[in-house]
Structures are given as C-alpha cells and as structure tokens.
C-alpha cells in the first residue's frame, strides 16, 4: 500500500449538509507533499463539495482541514494560499492573459519587477509565452484552460485544487491536455487535489484516487489497487467494467493472517451446480450465504460449453471497441444464479421478469477465439486478469 508516511494536506472527518441533505460525511484524506490525489465520483457524490470545503468556499459542519500541520479551517479562501482551477475556468474576461496571471500576485503585493518575471515564467510553463497580451476571448478553449492553470500556480500556492479542469475540452484534446496537466503540476511539485467524474482522467492524472459514493469515501488507493482489488461494491462496478454473477459461499473466507479479513482472503463460491470459482472476499461470509461475484471481462476465458468449471451460455451480441472485443453472454439458468435476484423482484410483467432473470456477462474475446452471436460457449476464470471479488448480498447499502 502506498500510505504516505507523513501528510501535508489533511482532511479530517469533513462533513457537510445542505438543509436536509447530507452531501458529505466523515471524509478523511491525507495527501503527501507533492502528491496528486484524484477525487472520483458521480455527480452528487460530494466530490465538488469536498473541494469547495478545502478551498474555503463552504464551511464544514464537521471536521477540519490542515496544511503542513496548520489548521486552516477557519481561514478565508483569500488567506489559505491555495490555487484553484475552476470548471469553466472563471477567467476575467476584461483582462488580458498576462493580467489574469498577475492578478493573484498583485493581490499578494508582489513587487512589480518580480511580478513581471513570474508572469513570464508561468506563461512559459504552460507554453503560452507569445499570448500574454491576448484577450481571453481571443484564445482557444485549451489555451484558456492553460491560462487558468498558470493563474492558479502564479502566486506559489501551497496546494492546487482542480475542479473538473478538462471537462470543457473536446475529447481528442482532453487526453493530450491530461498529460500536459500532470507534467506541469509534477514539474512544480505541488500537492494537488483533482475532482473529476471521469475514471480515465482520475487514473491518468492522479497518483492515488479516492472514490466517493453518495457522500462517503468508498475506497482510496492507487489506480491499480482500485481496479484489481476493489473493496467496495460501488467501486468494483464504477471503476472499469464488471459483470455480476450470483452464487453461494462454498467454503468460508480464510484469512491467511488469521483474524480480520485482509485484501487477499480467498473463498470458494458455487456459481452453478458443480461449478465453484475462487474469489477474493472483502468481508466475512458464512457457508451457504448468497453472494454476488463481480468479474472483469478480461478475467474470463472463453472455453467449451461443457468444460469442467465453466458456466454455459449463448452469445447474444459482440461489442467491438477497437483494442478489445467483448462477447455478451447470456448465461443458462443454474442453481444459485438468477433465483431471487433484485431484477426478479422488481420486474413487473412476466415477460419482463423472464428477461430480467437472465444474467448477462461480458467476456473479453482473445484474438484466437472465434465467437459469433448465437454460439453456445462456456466461460471460466482465466489464469491472468483480476480475481473476481465477492460481495455479500445482505450487506446494508
């Protein structure tokens, strides 16, 4: 694990309510100096609120924020010394590019000559040296994004806050800008909190990623950890693709270290009569308990429908995404699968229920597999790829 040895920016038990709605509860995060942490979540997950609390635009109902050991919770935004890049940049359209960058320096009463030097250095950093005198309306969206970054970095802030900084760019431009952004931030070496709803952006820019789900921290870890070892049902399905299969516990999770379950506690799960798969358990479970298995498409291999340890099904569709092709497999009914699922309970008509009852799983098709819609195939966990993760169905969510 990459727990930082000492934290520079610390969010301690942050909580915020707007009226009746709790948008953030007990958020604890610690960033090492120079670390980029991405806050990832859907809209309404509380990520933007968390960022605005750190920036000082909102006051927390609980908890506090500390930088380098100093409690800044009571400081106004102007006194925190944090730089921020806003979602729509919030550039001052009545000032030129250079005036925008100089604004924070004037506010902090930098002497004139140092100001000019700093503005030039910042323009260089974001590769806009020739654009200082341009009007904001006269530069492109990507350039505006860079001006916003330069403006935020100019007063040498202690912490950089990025609020969906790339969401306004074209998809093609976004990927390149993502790398430039990370390079620029790393060159400065500033501790950075990034808010985004895009998993790719969080993975690409962040050293670590904190996934927020409805106001709580679902999981914190490196991108690899989140993908390969999700400890949370929401994280497993939100980060990357995952299929869901129902099963029952065959052998209870055994913790090699004894006592509490760790990340590597393994359990055997019966997914169909006579078919038992191994999976990581993130919580204790007893034998016979119904559980849900989340499986990455690339963790499944295409095998014979009658192969031992395989689930049989029919290919209903192929999805070609460029680098990978996925087969959508409709699994045949099996004990422990489909019975009493959430879909069946929610389904209205008989027809709807029948459709809901069927379990569809995506499997990555290798270059040597010849699969077409209508084929009857088997799927089984492969030797490579992330191990499926078990989540209890009874868990109160």
């Amino acid at each position: 694990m990459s727990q930082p040895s000492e934290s520079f920016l610390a969010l301690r038990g942050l909580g915020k309510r707007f009226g009746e709605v709790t948008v953030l509860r007990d958020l604890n995060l610690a960033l090492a100096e120079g670390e980029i942490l991405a806050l990832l979540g859907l809209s309404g997950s509380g990520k933007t609120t968390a960022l605005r609390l750190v920036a000082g635009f909102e006051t927390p109902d609980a908890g506090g924020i500390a930088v380098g050991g100093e409690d800044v919770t009571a400081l106004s935004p102007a006194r925190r010394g944090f730089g921020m890049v806003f979602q729509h940049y919030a550039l001052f359209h009545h000032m030129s590019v250079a005036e925008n960058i100089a604004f924070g320096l004037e506010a902090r009463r930098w002497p004139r000559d140092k100001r000019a030097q700093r503005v030039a250095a910042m323009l260089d950093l974001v590769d806009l040296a020739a654009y200082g005198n341009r009007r904001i309306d006269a530069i492109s969206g990507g350039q505006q994004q860079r001006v916003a970054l330069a403006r935020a970095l100019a007063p040498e802030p202690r912490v950089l806050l990025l609020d969906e900084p790339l969401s306004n760019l074209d998809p093609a431009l976004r990927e390149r800008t993502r790398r430039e952004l990370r390079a620029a931030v790393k060159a400065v070496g500033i501790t950075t909190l990034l808010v985004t709803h895009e998993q790719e952006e969080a993975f690409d820019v962040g050293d670590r990623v904190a996934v927020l789900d409805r106001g709580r921290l679902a999981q914190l870890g490196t991108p690899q950890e989140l993908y390969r070892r999700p400890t949370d049902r929401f994280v497993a399905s939100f980060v990357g693709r995952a299929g869901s299969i129902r099963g029952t516990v065959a052998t209870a999770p055994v913790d090699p270290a004894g006592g509490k379950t760790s990340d590597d506690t393994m359990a055997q799960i019966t997914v169909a009569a006579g078919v038992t798969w191994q999976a990581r358990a993130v919580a204790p479970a007893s034998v016979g308990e119904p559980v849900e298995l989340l499986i990455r498409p690339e963790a499944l291999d295409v095998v014979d429908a009658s192969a031992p340890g395989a689930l049989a099904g029919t290919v209903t569709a192929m999805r070609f995404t460029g680098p990978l092709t996925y087969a959508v497999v409709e699994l045949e009914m099996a004990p422990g699968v489909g019975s009493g699922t959430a879909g069946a309970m929610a389904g209205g008509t008989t027809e709807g229920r029948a459709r809901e009852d069927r379990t569809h799983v995506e499997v990555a098709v290798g270059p040597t597999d010849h699969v077409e819609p209508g084929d009857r195939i088997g799927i089984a966990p492969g030797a490579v790829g992330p191990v499926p993760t078990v989540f209890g169905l009874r868990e109160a969510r």
Partner: protein
Amino acid sequence: MTPASRSRIGALAVALLLTWLVGYPLLLTLLQALEVEGRISFEPLHAFAGAADEWAALGRSLLVATASVVLAALVGVPLAFVFARTDFPGRRILGALVALPVALPPLVGVIAFLFLYGESGFVPRLLMDLFDLEKSPWRLHGLGAILLVHTYSMYVYFYLFTRAALARMDGASLEAAASLGSGAWRTFWRVTVPQLYPALLGAALLTFMTALGSFSAPYIFGGGYRVMTTQIVASKVSGDLARANLESVALAALALIALIAVRTLQGSMVDATSAHGVAPRPRRIRRPGVRLAFAVLGWTLAIVLLLPHLTLMLISLVPSGTWTTELLPPVLDFGNYRELATEPERLRPMVNSVWMAAVATLGAVALGLLTARRARATRGRMGDALEALVALPWAIPGTVFAVALAATFSVSQPWFGRFLWVGTPIILPLAYLVRVLPITGRAAIAGLRQLDPALEEAAWSLGASRTRSFFRIVLPLMRPVLAAAVGLSFITALGDFVVSIVLYTYETRPISIEILSTLRSQSFGVAAAYGVMLMLLSAAAFLVWGRGEAAP
C-alpha cells in the same frame, strides 16, 4: 416579378413610410430653422450661437441630465447590490416594489411629489405642525426639485440593469479572485465592477436620454429654471416658431452626440460576463440584529418610495375646498371620482387617452412588425437602415418630435406628404405612434431574431401560405416579447404629457393635459383622482400585457 425583387420593393415601401413619419419631420424642422425669407441661410445659426440664454438652457439640460445619471446611480446601484446579494425578510416583495416607479407616467410622479413635498404638501405641513413654523421650511422648485423627482423615477433604470447584470455574473469569478488571495475590496473593484460596466453604461445612457428629454418635472417645478425642453415649449406657445425649431434642432443634436459617444464607448467594451456559471447565492444574514436592521431599512425605503402614490390616493378622496390648515384632511369621500365618471367634460379626457393610446399602440405594433419582417428579409444596408429608423424616435427628445410633427402637419401640401392634421384628432395618436415605435419595433426585431427561421420554413414546406404561417406560427411565438412591448407602449402613450402639450386641442385633450388644467384651477382632488386613474389604467395594462417582461 421574382421573390427577391418583390421583397426589395416591400422593404423600400416600408422605408419610405418610416422616413415620412420619422425622418421627414426632423429634416423639415432643420430646414425651417435655417430658412430666412424662403432661402436656406446660416444666419439663424449665428444668431443662436450668440444667444446667451439659449446656451444657458442647453447647459442646464446637460447639467440636469448628467446630475440625474449620477444621483440615480448612487441610489439604484447600492440598492441592486443589497437586493441581489443579501437575504432578509421581505426581500422578494420589496425587490419588486422598488421597481414600481418605472411603470408610472412621469407626470403622475411629479404631481404626487407636489402633494407630498410641495409647499402645502404633507411633509411641510407635518414639519410646520411639529415645530410650530409660520411657513413651509422649503419651496419645492428649481434645480433641486427637478433632480429630486428625476432621482426618484430614474434610479429604477440603474436598479434593474445592475440587478440583471449581477444575476448573470459568474459566481466562480469571485471565488477565483478570493482563491488568488484577493480581499473583498479588491475583488469588488477589480472583478465585480468591471463586469458591471456594460450594464452601468446602458443604464446611464437610458437615464441621460430620459432626463435630457424630461419635460414634466422642469415644467411643474422648474419655475425660472428653464431647461431646453421647457424653453422650446415656451417659444412654441409664444408663437416664435422659428426659434422653437432652432432650439429643437440644438436639443436633438445634443441627444445624438451623447448617443453616439456612448455607443462608441460600448463598442470598445468586451462583455465580461461569461456564458457559463451561476450567480452567487444571496448571502443569508444570520445575525438577528443585522437582519432586523436590513428589514427595517428595506421597509422604510419601500414606504418612502410608495409614499407619493399613497399621498395621491389620499388627496383624490378630499372634496374640493374642505382641507385648509389641518394636518390631515377632515373629510374623505369619493366625490371626485363621481365627478370624473358623471360629468361628460371630465370623462372626455379619459376616453380620449384610452382610445388614442390604443390606436397608437396598435399602429406601432403593426408598423414595428412590418419593419422587423422587412429588415430580416432584406438584411444588409437596407435592413440596417430600417432598424435605425425605427429606433430613432427613442434618441430624440419628445418635445423635439412634437415640434417637428407640428411643423410638418400644419400645412396642406399632399404632394410633399404634408397634410393639415394639426388641430384634428389625427395628430395626437400619430405622434404617440411615433413615440412608442421604438418600443414595439425593437421588440419585434428582437423577437424575430430569436425565432428559428426553420420554423417558418417548416410551415411553408407543409403548404402554408406566407400569411397563414405568419399568423399561425410566427406571431404566436413572438407573443411574449410583443405583449411586453404592447403594455409598455400603451402605458407610455396613455400617460404622455410631453407631446400632448404641444399638439392637443380642447376636443382631444388627454388625461395629462386635464390634470394640468385642474391643478391650475386649484381642483387638487380632481387632479389627484385623474392621477390615480392613470396609475390604475397603467397598472392594469402592465398586468394584462407586460407581466414580468417590461424591459426598458
């Protein structure tokens, strides 16, 4: 004939009509001003340039207009900030109430002020009673009185413009400034105020033009303090038409110079409000003491602003001759209203005002729509010319237009487009129409511009004729914009005083003229009752048509 040439001919016809109504009278006024014994000469100009009293009147007009802008801004802008940025009990209703003076005819405001602050008004009476004074502590007249009335009625422009701009402002720009270490003061001056410049300039222009053309306040309160509008009317009334023409030309020139100067300034300005973003939420005031202070201040303000109109209502209930030296009127009844309703000569002005305002509004809507459609169909230079012509009366003080129309339509020369209409019931509705044409015309142009052309094309492709698609598709979609313009036009024409005083006849006298003559004959109760009727009619028009969209 091809469709293209047909549309060009249509545009030409509309342009001719507009030129005849708007441009031609002004041109004739200019020519007549320069005419000496049947020939154009610059002699009158020389004489004018050497006349000290003319320069003094122009100077006073300029001073009144400039001071009105400053004072209106000093009241309206802080008020807008209070209502847009803080939250206190009663904020919503007060925020709407303080915009009220914009919907009321200037003359009504003026006589309400007279009854409240004039020498025998409520406030002086109260002060005399309280401090045992022999006579009123002040006289409501001269520059001070004019500016007081102007501030009262024109701060609304600054208030509405600033509030709209604050509502559009991106709250993130303020947060960005704060995160860059900028304190509240610096953020205000460097970030907030520059984003308000376009709105402030727009409000300043509107206030300046309104104050420059203002007639009611200088006429009633000015006394010896002659501004150009009152000077023009005085010249006209004394029969010195040449002088009135020349003075009109001078005032129009001043107005146009101001307009061009401000437009140039506006052109060089970037609209700093970004397309994105949400305005900052009004800050809830938490401290109970401060909350109470704001509420008390807000309500006091609203009462002060509404007091003139409440006074007017009270005076309208006072029977003639019953209120002499008492602090409060001893008798109140509806006698004045009964008189208005039952005596034919009292009823006539109201009937006159309503039908003339209605005809003028209808005509202005039709002409505005026609212009907007032609301008859109032709585009290019012809389209620009049409739009400029339709907006021109806005830039020309009402008095000037009245004098110009009087000069144009007081002889019968049908081949020169001049008819003997002065003294007939035609001239006042026509003059009102020209006055309100910018309101309907600009609304029609804006409404048509917002409309997706594909909608009309879709109607055509479905087999609808041009006429049918216009009445079934275009007009219904433009209704909200047009309705607001109709309401505002009707109110403007209904309460008009500036144009009426130059062009009315006894038979066609409108409410405003009758208010003036009842004031002169000391029938204050009847004058107030007329004022209240004007207020009620305006309010009704506002409610029926202008709901929420009375953009100035």
